[in-house]
């Protein structure tokens, strides 16, 4: 029998109320914040909020930025382009931090809460930064066993091809600059490759 908040489910497993509520976007409360982001790390403290289910982070400004969870932020953290939005479900983090390379922007943050505590929150994260070239390169999460919600974003400047747990080739999943891919998988090694003579930076967030 599957544990509450843990995916993937197998045939015959049951879904919990918290999972269904999250799936349909039914929440008891929504706490909202704005985070002013500069070239120095800044954070929003959401540690006092009970029963956190879902975290929404949207870059509402005109400058790209980077964000992190429960740590101070650096420009090696997860890339979030201007205008983009990421939603993390079934997770419980205490801080959202962000930084720009230069200039300023604003993050709108919403924390969606449930009616009671539950198990199965994702409270761990790892962020990888992969420098892709025209030869396959890879990076791995420290945790090699848990299924993770993974967000992969091509920071640019060229397209990259992504592979999971294998050597990357240009037959892999193609991401244009500033495009993203989300997946839940137990694969812990992510590889990337560019076209001949090109390079790109790939930003990878794993939540588990």
């Amino acid at each position, binding site marked *: 029998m599957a544990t509450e908040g843990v995916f993937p489910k197998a045939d015959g497993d049951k879904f919990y109320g918290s999972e269904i509520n999250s799936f349909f976007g039914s929440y008891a409360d929504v706490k909202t914040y704005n985070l002013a982001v500069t070239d120095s790390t800044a954070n929003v403290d959401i540690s006092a909020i009970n029963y956190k289910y879902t975290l929404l982070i949207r870059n509402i400004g005109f400058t790209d930025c980077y964000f992190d969870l429960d740590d101070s932020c650096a420009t090696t953290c997860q890339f979030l382009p201007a205008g983009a939005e*990421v939603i993390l479900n079934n997770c419980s983090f205490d801080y959202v931090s962000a930084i720009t390379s230069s200039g300023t922007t604003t993050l709108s943050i919403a924390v969606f809460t449930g009616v009671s505590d539950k198990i199965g929150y994702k409270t761990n994260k790892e962020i990888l930064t992969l420098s892709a070239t025209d030869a396959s390169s890879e990076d791995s999460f420290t945790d090699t066993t848990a299924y993770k919600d993974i*967000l992969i974003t091509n920071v*640019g400047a060229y397209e990259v091809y992504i592979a999971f747990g294998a050597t990357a080739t240009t037959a892999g999943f193609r991401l244009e600059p500033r495009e993203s891919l989300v997946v839940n998988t137990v694969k812990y090694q992510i590889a990337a490759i560019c076209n001949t003579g090109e390079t790109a930076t790939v930003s990878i967030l794993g939540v588990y």
Partner: protein
Amino acid sequence: MITYKPSSRLGALNEEDFKSDATARGWIVSNTGGSTVSYDGTNGFKITTGLSTTTNISLTNNTTKFMQYLSLYFRTPSGSRYATSPKIAVYLNEVKVVEASFDLAGNTAYEGEMNINIFKSTPNDYKYNYIVAQQNSIVTYYSGTVNVNSNGTNVIRIDFDGRTGSDGVTTQYWYMTNLKWV
């Protein structure tokens, strides 16, 4: 589960950059004539009065952004007359990719609009061949390749060359709006 939504805007640098404080957003205004450039809160860059045929204004921005699509909109003053045809040229990394001018040889009072669209096809190749120019405009197409610096600085420069108002009239102006850039 993670859900990701890309920007609904066309890019980090969009028309709002022209409608607000463009200088703060990295645009460098170089003015070799007696005209002024201001930032109209509604219409964007407002280039006012004083341009002669030898006057040139450059708007330059350095960016590490990946330029995939560039759209520009220009509008000339309403009811103006020109002794020469004003021109607009767009450079990417100092390579001229398009030049457009208004055909005003008849010196008839009219206004013009231009839309310029530049599409990027493959990583190092810009195609300049989709340009929509309206109302009495002449467009020169340039083909070729612009090298895009993947990790360094890329430059877009927009040059205005020509008068902003009819002879003796100093209250006319250009607008440049609707810059969209991915």
